[in-house]
């Protein structure tokens, strides 16, 4: 029963974070803020549900796979965010007006336009 409760808790919280991620991506005002929602809430939500799976099965192989999946998520999500964010910034995706930009940051981000265009 406790076991079930723990699982239920993880499932529920995971579900909420997944939902929140979706909500954030839809509701937040600009790309970069949306990415906060997707990167953090999304990863967390899925991670929690994977934990629930690990707890529920409580088998070595399952735990191993669940942990592996969580690891993979944690490794990849921020890299993806970095790449999208940088690309978006370089391609001039607009930000909300209230965004405060420290001196030089925008220039620095735009300064190096990736690789040279081939031929």
């Amino acid at each position, binding site marked *: 029963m406790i076991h*079930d409760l723990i*699982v*239920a808790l993880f*499932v*529920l919280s*995971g*579900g*909420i974070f*997944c*939902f*929140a*991620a*979706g*909500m954030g*991506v*839809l509701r937040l005002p600009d*790309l970069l803020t*949306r*990415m906060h929602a*997707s990167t953090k809430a*999304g*990863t967390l*939500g*899925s991670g929690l*549900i*994977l934990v*629930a*799976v690990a707890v*529920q*099965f409580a*088998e070595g*192989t*399952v735990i191993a*796979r*669940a942990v*592996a*999946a*969580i690891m*993979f*998520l944690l490794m*990849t*999500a921020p*890299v*993806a965010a970095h*790449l*999208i964010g*940088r*690309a*978006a910034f*370089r*391609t001039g*995706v*607009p930000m909300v007006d209230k965004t405060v930009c420290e001196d030089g940051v925008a220039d620095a981000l735009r300064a190096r*336009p*990736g*690789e*040279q*265009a*081939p031929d």
Partner: protein
Amino acid sequence: MTMLEYVILFGFALVILGVVLAAIRLVRGPSLADRIVALDLMTVQLVSFGGLTALLSGSAGFLDVAVVLALVGFLATVCLARYLERRILLQAEELT
């Protein structure tokens, strides 16, 4: 149905709603970057979907879907991001 099953179904509903919301962003854009973010989020949410299915069916086989997805969903995002960045250099602007 046990309490846990109800919770899992509720979890399903939450996740799937999240997917739908992301899908709406996918449709609305407005920029390609927004769509990439939405698609990326959808793949991550699918990891949850796999996990929940594993829970509901009692078959750990579905966990593998989650593992694979966690790994390779990233690849699609990377490629799209690269497209986004390079396209500017290669062609005229396509913002939508």
